């Protein structure tokens, strides 16, 4: 078909393309500035000379990170919580979603109703905290992995829908005829067919666990257990720093290091996700599709 361009369409195209370009700039410009600032000296930053390229190039802020034991430890803690928290969460979600996806499970509908209710209404922060402390959950590296945020009901609902749509009743029937138990069916039939779901669940949880700070704020007071986001909050928002962080005695120099350390810690904290992001992006988009299948 021959395309006829109308003047109205040309104008609309211009509006669309230019606003999308402006949007990209609005996201890229601050990001590039932060990276540039992290490689610049505090002196030129205060003078306002840094825009999009490092000025007076220096690695002093990154050296300060290497001299910041609390930050390094929290980085390792976050890696731990991200990896093991994700394992625990994905296991919990699947262990609940799979039985609930089997048609005819006595009580299944009732359990779904209860789960749905807990999504709309919950005990709130204080009662939840009191139950957790009554159970002795706070201040423990391993118990932290099992706290309320470990099992997201939303993920259970979408996983259940996924199992229901992807695996047919015939498959279950034939597995049963072959004498496979429910556990065996889960491990040998359902999980291999659900790789995309597992990938998406894992990605969501890795990002969530890496980025969240509220559960840690409430349940981890012990400094050696705290994740990266807590320490970042101290550096970026509360302007705190470890007194023994560096052996600099000059107060102005210390302030300067604190200033550039902020930029560098933003870069370092976001780095793992931003490196993985280009590869994982299409899986995340796929995940939204899985989530939007109506059950």
């Amino acid at each position: 078909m021959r395309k006829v361009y109308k003047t109205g369409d040309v104008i609309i195209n211009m509006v669309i393309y230019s606003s999308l370009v402006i949007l990209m700039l609005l996201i890229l410009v601050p990001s590039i500035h932060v990276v540039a600032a992290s490689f610049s000296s505090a002196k030129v930053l205060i003078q306002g000379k840094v825009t999009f390229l490092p000025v007076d190039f220096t690695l002093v802020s990154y050296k300060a990170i290497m001299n910041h034991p609390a930050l390094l430890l929290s980085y390792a803690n976050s890696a731990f919580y991200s990896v093991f928290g994700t394992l625990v969460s994905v296991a919990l979600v699947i262990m609940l979603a799979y039985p609930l996806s089997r048609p005819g499970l006595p009580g299944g509908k009732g359990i779904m109703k209860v789960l749905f209710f807990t999504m709309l209404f919950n005990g709130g922060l204080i009662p939840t905290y009191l139950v957790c402390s009554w159970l002795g959950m706070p201040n423990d590296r391993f118990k932290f992995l099992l706290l309320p945020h470990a099992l997201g009901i939303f993920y259970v609902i979408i996983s259940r829908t996924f199992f229901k749509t992807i695996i047919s009743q015939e498959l279950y029937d034939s597995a049963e005829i072959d004498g496979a138990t429910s556990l065996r069916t889960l491990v040998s039939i359902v999980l291999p067919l659900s790789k995309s779901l597992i990938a998406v669940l894992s990605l969501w949880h890795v990002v969530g666990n890496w980025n969240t700070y509220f559960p840690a704020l409430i349940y981890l007071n012990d400094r050696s257990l705290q994740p990266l986001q807590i320490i970042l909050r101290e550096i970026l928002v509360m302007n705190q720093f470890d007194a023994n962080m560096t052996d600099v005695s000059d107060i102005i120099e210390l302030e300067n290091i604190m200033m550039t350390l902020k930029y560098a810690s933003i870069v370092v904290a976001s780095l793992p996700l931003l490196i993985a992001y280009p590869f994982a992006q299409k899986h995340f988009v796929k995940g939204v599709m899985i989530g939007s299948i109506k059950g």
Partner: protein
Amino acid sequence: MALFVSSDAKKRIFKYKQLYSIMLIPLVHVFLFRILPIFGIAISFQEFRISKGIFGSRWIGLDNFFKLFNSNYFGDIFSNTLILNLLNLLIGFPFPVIFALFLNEVKKKYFKKSVQMVAYAPHFISTVVIVGIIFQLLDPTVGFLKFIVGKEAAADINLIGDPKAFRPIFITSGIWQHLGWSSVIYSAALAGVDPTLYDSAAVDGAGKLHKIWHIDLPSIMPIITISLILAMGRVMNSDFEKVYLLQNNMNIGTSEVISTFVYKRGLIHADFGFSSAVGFFNSIINFVLILTTNYTSKKLSGESMF
């Protein structure tokens, strides 16, 4: 007991025994961390002492609620919560829709891919880092303002400590961070639009704007409705993480919302009974809101979540 359970039902239950045992651990988790706290709401009606526990503390009826309603800060934290989230919804909601509609018109594949790549990225950055970036960019000495208003003028502008600036900062940064990602569901729906609709519209001489208005928008309307229901149900539910990070003694007049109040009163000052009552009050409003919006939407448009 066995008399009341038919042998058929027994067989079925036996067959499903293994399924039950698979979900035992997650069900215990749900019971401990989601059901038990709901019963824990009882402390809202107590003068709760942690040493006496829920069974030993004194019951005081609705006193905690009266204390809240009669307090001089109740009006402030209630309206702060409502205004912040309503403004955030009204201003923020259309952006992802418009973005998806615009992106759908882009036919150049690489441009489209680049826009998506860039626009989705901020969603994956943590709230702490986002707030850190906001603080750096708005900083009187090292921030961006000096490029706009000049160095001397910028040194006098402290937006982070300005109660009037809190809401604009919160809302704008939210749009900046989530606009791209929130549009994914709309983009997905737009990708499913029957292409023959466009062809017949073109035959009828419809321009781009007509196609967007008469084909694209109606086809994503159901998803817009569902998203709006979900968002309305959250209108008394602030993003605690971000509000708390952006909050300071200077902007507290606009930044103190119910969730930050509950956190500080409950966990920092250990006033458990009272803060639990405040949280419970908020939960009820949320619950009623989501039921109402769901019901209204079901009546008006036939779209609903449950």
